[in-house]
Structures are given as C-alpha cells and as structure tokens.
C-alpha cells in the first residue's frame, strides 16, 4: 500500500459567506423560555380560587376526578378529600376556575349530585355513569367566602329561579316533605323547600317557593292549607270525593287560594308568614275577618258539646262553638252553661256557592230576629256518639224573650234542647209507670194464686180416689175384653172350621149360579125346550 503524496492534496477553498450567525441558535431556548414563561404566567393568572367544602360523607368524591359544576358547566375540580380534625365531616378542597371567583359568596350552596328519586321526580341519573359531581348554586350575598358547608341533599329551588319564598306556620307537618307541590287551583306552581320546628316547638315553619308568574297570586289575603290526602264527605247529595292532584293525594302538598283576587291586593312580601290550615274549610274560615261573638245560656247539659262544634242555622253551618263554661252568675241549684259562639255572617251568603263576602251583622238585626222567635237550641248531631251542636232557629211559639248583653256580648235566648225533651218524655213514662199501683196489682195476683193452689189440691185428691177404687175394676173389664178378642181371632183364623164352611158354601153357591146360567142360556136359545125338552133328547 503506497502512501499518497501529501503535497498533492488540494487546498480547501475559503468560502466567502456565512450562512447565518451562530448566535441565532440561541433564539430557540429563548423561544422555549418565552413559551414556558407564558405558560407559567397564564397558569398563574388563570389559577382560580381554592375553596374548602365540608360534607357529611365523602361518597363518590375523589380527588383529581370529581368536578364542580355550576349549571352543568365545569368550573373546577376537587383537589383533595380529607377528614376534618374532629372526624365529623370530610373536607373537600377544590380549585375553581378564575371566572368562578365572584360566585363564591357566603350563601352559595354546594351539594353532591347523586341519583335521587323524590316527590315524583327523578334527578341525577347521569351520575350513574359519570360518577358524582359537586353542584353549586350561587347565592345572593355580597360577602365572599372560601369555606362552605355542603348540603346533604340537592336544594329543590336554585337560587336564581325567579319566584318568591313564603313561610307557612303549620300545626303539624302532615305528609309534607321537601319537594311536595304547591298547588293553586290544582296547578302546581311551586314546591315545599324546607321545614323546621319553631324554636318553641309549638308549630312547624314550612317554607314554600312559588314560581315567578304565579307568585303574584299570593297576596296578604291568601290562605294556605294541606292538600294532602282525600277528603270524603257524605251529604244529602251523595258521597263527595275531594282531592287535589294525584301526586298531592299520595305525597301530600300545599294548596293555596286567594279570596277576592280581583281586588288587586298588594302581593305578599317575600317571607310573609302565613298560616297553613288543616283543610280547605279551616283555611277559608280562618280568613273570615268579621266574626260575631254571641253568647247563649243553656240550662241543659252540655255533655257532647265540644269547642269547635258547628253552629247551624237551618242546615247552614254559620259558626262554631268557641267556649263552654259554667255561668258564674247563675244561682246554685239551677246551673246554667254559658256557651260562646263565633258566627261568620259571610257564610250566609257563601252558602249559595259564592265566596265569603264581608258582611256585617249588627245587634239590631239579631234583636229583631229574636223578637220574631230566633232561639238557640242544643240538638243531637249523632245518636250514636251523642254529639251536640247548636242550632239557631225560629220558634214562633216560644216564650217571648229579648236580646240581652253580657259584658258587651250579645246573649241569645235559648230553648230547651231536644235532648232534654227526650229526657222529659222518658221521665213522664217513668212517672206513669210509677202511678200504675203495682202493689195493689200484686196483692190481687197473690189471691188468685191461692185459689189456684186449692183447686190443684182438690184435683190431687180426686186422682188418689180414682187410683184406690176404680182401677181393679178396670183391669177385670180389660181382661174380659182380651178374652173376647182372642176368641174372635180364633174364629177368624184361615184354617178355622167356620172359614172352611164358608168357603164350601161359597163354592156351592158359585156352582149353583153356573147351572142357573146354563139353564138361562138354553132357555134363551131354545125357548121351546121349556115345552118340548132339550132338542137332543127329542122323542
């Protein structure tokens, strides 16, 4: 192998130009740094607020996976799920997007969306597949906050749904629950959103939400009542079944109505306190503003008369018994009961089917009616239960009386009730029974019995006589009779000689009869035989 001569190698050309400045390559890390810096800055800028939510249970919550949504729009993510130091709650830390910062006010609400079936509605079914998420509802407060307490259940009404909230003061909750419908003329217009016992424990404050277009029907005059269940009433026209919607009948609900809705009453203020009545009737009753108090003094027993018992005017229930007390002013020995009644004059007009209309009933009118014979009377509503009601009626033949006043309250004269009438008749019957001189009657009876006793004794003596004398004679007679009968039987036996003779005799009689017939036949055919003899033995 020969080495090539070194000196033959050509010289390298010197190229005149440079392609690019070598330091230009430093643009690359610069650009990378710029991009990285921009990423960091934008991340820092878009980094939203961090919040802590306390929940009772961490079911379905997972750090880094569970989203936080507002109106189903993703606004954040759970970053950690930890137990609270007191181990009562779990603390969920979440990082929200920057735009969500204004939503974080003190009354914003958070809850975990899970599948839920309640009040005839089904919600959160999508979470069956996608897993739970935390939903948010923005509050109205202006103070911001970063720690919240999660709700255990989804709120029924989101904070921005238009409408108003009212509080109803109920005696008890009935079958209401959160989510029960609020009905106005059977149209569902809202929902029960919550309830709580009042601090004194005497009633339940039910919070209802009425949606926007309908909330204007709620005025200060509105009446709310339990629309739960089915109201069955029996009257002269038959059975009446009154229900609200089927949902309300099964799940309970609140119905409301506003009398004189045309009067353009001002809408009730939000959080106005209403009374939730037991039923429709009570609701309308409680609203009757003009109540007339009337007292009646009864001398009958008021057993069976209860506070709340109806006051009836010829079949119309126009009021109720408000109080029952012993009249302190009555004399001892003749006690009288003072019964206070509340009369709603509006019902007199409402009975025609109209709405209760304010109507005054003044004492002068009542006084005139009393002069015509208007009286109060206790009547039995049910013979089975013995319940009483107060009837107002005209008794033209009642003893004249006038309307008086006790402590400024009209006192209506009363009639003896039908119960006491019944009592009177019973007493009368008892008295006449009493008057029947039962002692005399019983003495007569005793005498008769003595006589009867004597007669029986005599009969007894007669019988013993008969046994002593007559009986042996009778026995002899009977024996003789037996003998006679025996001999009769002997002679009547089939093989008895008498029978045989009789039979023979009968046979001879039959033979005789036959020869007579032969003779008669021969004579009929040959009458000449009588003269000439039989043709066979012709001469």
């Amino acid at each position, binding site marked *: 192998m020969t080495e090539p001569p070194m000196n033959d*190698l050509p010289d390298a050309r*010197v*190229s005149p*130009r440079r392609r690019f400045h070598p*330091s230009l390559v430093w643009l*690359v890390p610069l650009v*990378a740094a710029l991009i990285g810096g921009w990423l960091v800055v934008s991340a820092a800028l878009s980094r939203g607020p961090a919040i802590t939510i306390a929940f009772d249970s961490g079911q379905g919550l997972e750090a880094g996976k569970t989203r936080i949504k507002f109106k189903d729009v993703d606004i954040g993510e759970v970053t950690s799920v930890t137990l609270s130091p007191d181990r009562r709650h779990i603390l969920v830390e979440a990082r929200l997007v920057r735009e969500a910062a204004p939503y974080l006010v003190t009354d914003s609400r958070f809850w975990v969306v899970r599948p839920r079936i309640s009040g005839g509605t089904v919600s959160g079914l999508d979470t069956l597949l*996608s897993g739970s998420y935390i939903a948010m509802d923005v509050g109205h407060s202006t103070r911001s906050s970063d720690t919240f307490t999660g709700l255990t259940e989804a709120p029924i009404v989101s904070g921005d749904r238009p409408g108003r909230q009212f509080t109803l003061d109920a005696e008890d909750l009935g079958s209401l629950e959160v989510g029960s419908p609020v009905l106005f003329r059977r149209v569902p217009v809202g929902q029960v959103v919550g309830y709580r016992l009042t601090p004194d424990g005497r009633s339940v404050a039910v919070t209802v939400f009425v949606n926007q277009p309908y909330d204007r029907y709620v005025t200060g005059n509105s009446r709310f009542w339990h629309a739960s269940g089915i109201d069955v009433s029996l009257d002269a026209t038959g059975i009446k079944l009154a229900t609200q919607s089927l949902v309300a009948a099964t799940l309970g609900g609140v119905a409301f109505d506003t009398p004189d809705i045309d009067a353009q009453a001002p809408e009730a203020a939000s959080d106005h306190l209403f009374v939730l009545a037991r039923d429709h009737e009570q609701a309308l009753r409680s609203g009757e503003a003009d109540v007339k108090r009337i007292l009646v003094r009864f001398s009958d027993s008021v057993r069976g008369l209860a506070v709340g018992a109806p006051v009836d005017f010829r079949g119309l229930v126009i009021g109720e018994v408000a109080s029952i007390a012993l009249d302190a002013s009555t004399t001892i020995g003749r006690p009288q009961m003072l019964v206070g009644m509340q009369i709603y004059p509006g019902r007199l007009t409402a009975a025609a089917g109209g709405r209760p209309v304010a109507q005054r009933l003044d004492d002068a009118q009542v006084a005139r009616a009393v002069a015509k014979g208007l009286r109060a009377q206790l009547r039995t509503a049910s013979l089975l239960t013995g319940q009483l009601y107060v009837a107002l009626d005209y008794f033209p033949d009642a003893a004249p009386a006038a309307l008086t006043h006790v402590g400024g309250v009209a006192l209506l004269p009363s009639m003896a009730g039908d119960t006491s009438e019944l009592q009177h008749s019973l007493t009368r019957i008892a008295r006449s029974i009493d008057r029947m001189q039962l002692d005399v009657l019983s003495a007569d009876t005793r005498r008769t019995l003595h006589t009867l006793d004597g007669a029986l004794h005599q009969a007894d003596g007669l019988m013993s006589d008969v046994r002593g004398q007559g009986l042996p004679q009778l026995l002899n007679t009977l024996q003789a009779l037996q003998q006679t009968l025996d001999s009769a039987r002997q002679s009547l036996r089939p093989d008895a000689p008498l029978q045989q003779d009789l039979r023979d005799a009968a046979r001879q009689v039959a033979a005789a009869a036959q020869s007579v017939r032969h003779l008669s036949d021969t004579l009929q055919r040959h009458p000449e035989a009588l003269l000439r003899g039989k043709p066979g033995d012709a001469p």
Partner: protein
Amino acid sequence: MLPRAENSLAGTTLRLLSCPVCGQTTRHDGARTLACPCCGTSLAVRKPDSLSRAWAWLVAATLCYIPANVLPIMETRTLFGRQDNTILSGVVYLWLDGSWPLALVVFIASILVPLLKILCLSFLMLSVHFRWRWAPLQRTRLYRLLEAVGPWSMLDIYVVALLVALVQWQSLAMIQAGPGALAFAAVVVLTMLSAHAFDPRLIWDAAEEDRA
C-alpha cells in the same frame, strides 16, 4: 481491539480535512470558513460553534422538560368523565395496576432517559468547556450511547399518537394529545439536536493540545 486513548496523528495537527460528502481530503490553513474544492461542501475543522449551539439546544430542551412532565400528555374523555394523564400519573397508574414492568419501561424511557440525556450532555459540554483531560474514551462512549438512545424516548409520543388515532368514538370515548405531549416531543427532538450539534472531537482536543 480497544481504541488507543490518544490519537497521534489527528487531522488537526496535520492541518488536513476530509470532505464528508465526496471524501476528498484537503489541506487547510486554519481559516474558519472553508469549502471542499471538489464538491463545494462547506468544511470545518470542528463543527462551527459546536459548543454554543449544543448549549442552546440543551437549554431549550431543559426548559421544555418541565412542562413535558407537568402538563398532561393525554386527555381521555369517556362517558364516565374526563381524565388528564401526565407521564408520571401514567407511570403511577401502571404501577398501582400491578403491571410494574410496563411502568418501569415507561418510567425509564420517558422520564429517566431524557433527564439523563440532559445531564450527560451537560456533563460532556462542561468537560469540553473546562478542557478536562480525564477519560476521553469513556466520554466518547457515553456520547455514542446518547446518540443511540435518543430516538427511543419518542416511545411515549408514539403511544399517544397511536391512541389518539385509534380511540375516536366521539361521545363514548376520545383521546386527545395534551400540551405535555408537544413539550415532550420537543424535549426529545431538542436533546437530539443538541447531541448532534455537539462535536465529540472536542473531547479529544484538550488531550491533543496538551500533548502539543
């Protein structure tokens, strides 16, 4: 046969250059801008501004390494929700899932290798910068290893690209490449560029100078 630890007849000392395109060996006088007299390819004794360029690429790669590991490389949207996966979370997932060999592979290929590449390149460049004469042979081997192993870090990107292409069932399940994938690809490419820009002959230059 092991290469000798020093080269007695280096091209630099003989002032000779070999054209990488036509193979023409030329003489040169040490000027900075040279061209092959035969084919016109621009020639240089050493890669021009080798160290500076390698540093630039490496710095860029290092900068990209951070978002590559922090940002999600894959977004999985299924019926059951959305999930962002960073490289590390993928490794953790695989590890917890029990398939630790796979986790190990992903960890080495996607996290360890780029990191080691960056560290090793920095080490090589620093050694050249400070003209260390220590173990040039081992350093050269390291460089060869770096060059060889470079493309394998693209494994992750390959997997993501495959999944993105395959899993596209609209509402049922969908996988999208995240911004981390871009950064990660950038890391791999930039480290390769850096390794390419680095002239391994510089490792031996220090020893050469010393001898001269």
